[in-house]
């Protein structure tokens, strides 16, 4: 049969033969569990007993759960604080680093280093930095110069930014590299032309650099937004004794899902939360792609 096919058809057969492997892989480890999670979100299941259909009960519970709304808010604070801050900071670093010749490679490596470090190790080091006297680095310093201690992780208002800071720092290296690649891709001739016309540095930045960086910016915004919406390891490791605490002040949605599933063993409720997270990620990504689309 195969022998009777034309060369074009044979190409197609082979293409499908190779494509079948990743497709099968995705169906088994991605699509099947995803579909299953959606089904479980309409059921009551503690992993031990039978699955029982409960209709929209899990979603109803979610809607009326004050912790969920708190967590929902936290998740968006991580996003709305983390994404712009890391975008601006990484752009400023990349912009200046791009012009720097002295020890360029070394400094670039320093910025990239946190990205290569394990998030768990980094979170624990920062957790100790933030401790009160006598072990916390920051508070020990404050105490020696006579300034009152800052409660950092033991404050309902400061804990979230305190956790966000190392998370932003960790992602910075990657964004700087992407920005620098974007900057390098802008043709030199534009800048030369601008300089001949005697345009100011600000105008060059606003009229040439930033507009031409748009695809880079879109990529970084979408990429880091998804990252902040899924933030988990920094929060969990910096607050393991009271995950997402104090008083749920730092709990993101992913951590709530994790706890519901693997400490409460309430799989149905956790699946419902997962579906909500999925929808949030989908909507945020679509909105961003639309906003940044070239007209």
């Amino acid at each position, binding site marked *: 049969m195969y022998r009777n096919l034309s060369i074009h058809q044979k190409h197609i057969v082979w293409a499908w033969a190779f494509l079948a492997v990743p497709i099968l892989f995705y169906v088994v480890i991605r699509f099947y569990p995803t579909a299953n999670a959606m089904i479980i979100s309409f059921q009551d299941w*503690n*992993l*031990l*007993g039978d699955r029982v259909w409960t209709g929209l009960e899990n979603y109803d519970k979610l809607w009326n759960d004050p912790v969920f709304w708190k967590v929902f808010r936290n998740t968006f604070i991580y996003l709305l604080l983390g994404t712009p801050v890391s975008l601006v900071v990484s752009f400023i670093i990349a912009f200046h680093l791009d012009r720097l010749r002295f020890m360029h490679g070394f400094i670039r490596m320093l910025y990239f280093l946190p990205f290569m470090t394990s998030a768990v190790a980094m979170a624990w080091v920062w*957790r*100790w930095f933030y*401790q*009160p*006297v*006598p*072990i916390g680095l920051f*508070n020990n310093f404050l*105490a020696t110069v*006579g300034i*009152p*201690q800052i409660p950092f*992780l*033991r*404050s*309902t208002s400061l804990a979230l930014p305190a956790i966000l800071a190392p998370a932003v720092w960790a992602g910075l290296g990657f964004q700087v590299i992407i920005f620098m690649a974007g900057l390098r891709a802008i043709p030199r001739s534009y800048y030369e032309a601008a300089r001949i016309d005697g345009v100011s540095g600000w105008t060059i930045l606003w009229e040439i650099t930033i507009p031409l960086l748009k695809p880079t910016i879109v990529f970084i915004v979408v990429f880091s937004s998804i990252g902040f919406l899924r933030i988990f390891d920094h929060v969990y490791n910096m607050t393991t*004794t*009271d995950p997402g*605490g*104090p*008083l749920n002040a730092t709990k993101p949605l992913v951590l709530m899902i994790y*706890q519901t599933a*693997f*400490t*409460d*063993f309430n799989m149905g409720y956790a699946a419902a939360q997962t579906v909500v997270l999925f929808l949030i990620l989908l909507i945020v990504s679509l909105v961003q792609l639309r906003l940044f689309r070239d007209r």
Partner: protein
Amino acid sequence: MLVKQVRIWLAGAAALVALTIGGAKAEVEIEYWQYFFEARVTAMDQLIENFEAANPDIKVTMNHFPYADYRTKVAAAIPAGEGPDVVQLFYGWLNDYVAAELIQPLPSDAFPPAMVEEEFFPMVAAMRAGDSYWALPTAVRSLALFYNERLFEEAGIEGPPETLDEMIETAKMLTKVDDAGNLTQVGITAGMSAQDHHWFREVLVRQFGGEPYLDDYRTVNYNSEAGMRAAEFYTGLASEHKVTAFGFMDEPQAAFKAGRAGMHIDGSFRIGSLNKTRGLKWGVTELPANADGMRSNYSSYWVNAITTKADGEKFDAAVKFMAYVTSDEAMQIWLDVVGELPAKPSVGLTDSNSMNPVFGPFIRGLAYANTTKFANESAQRQLLIDMVQRIDLEGQSVADSIAIAAEAEQALLDEYYQ
């Protein structure tokens, strides 16, 4: 020559096959599961060896998993018809396993309830349902007050406190602050995320004259005068007496290990890691009594249970194995190897065990210990963590905060037992 050799080989192989088949016929094999903790695995290896020597027709294979995966593994394996015949579970999980029909009751002829009641420490009664027991422990845990002998000596303190009032006075002598008034050493550690939520529930509330739960732990009862005074006492350690701070050095046990805390309430399972801490000289005593001399304690334990997978001769073998791992001999081995307390007074209250300077205070605590029947221990703990934080961080009144905690916990229990 060659032919002869082959013949001998064949004969040997045939004999071997015959032996294995014969052996397999006479032998029942059962599987035992527990989570991985080196000392527990070593102890169980010893128990299995002794058991197999006494019962040559039964073979026990042990499987162990990291603690983090254990619960999920057990939960996935048994319903699939795989997994253990005898399984070790935390007592607090038992309800879920019973409800899902994953374990079966112990036969009342081998384990008559009257006998169990007489032989075991009273808190094991939590495992009884009607005329039979669902599971039985080899070892139990309780709480006690650890203290740093070096710091006691340095502060000129004679001995550990006997009552709660003495405890506060002792803690004051052990507390150190720097010039700016920041705590650098606490008199006693505090943190609901560690063992303090047990201390509050089963010890302090009772010592202030209350009963933490009613109706077999289905009704929350600590939102009372006694509960309020207990919560005031507990949060007062930081706010009124200033002998501690919540979150000091991140974790209570870390502060104690680092020699930055004079006293620390913790479970018997902490003994091993404290022994490994270099430079730490510690002692341990019973939890302080109240002014009337009334003491209480909290005990928890891991139980062994027979799963629904075991039937026929495997069930009989599992029953025999259960009888051995809950025997006096097994409990003594467990105490010597793991350092966990025997579940029977006949082993625990021997002179050498109950007067042991390390295990003694814990074992004596078992006589008056209570065991909370949790629906979801981590969630119930979280409610008490939050209760203290509302008072400590947000300045909420004790009365309001305890009312919120009690209401939330009642909702949780109602949902579980509905």
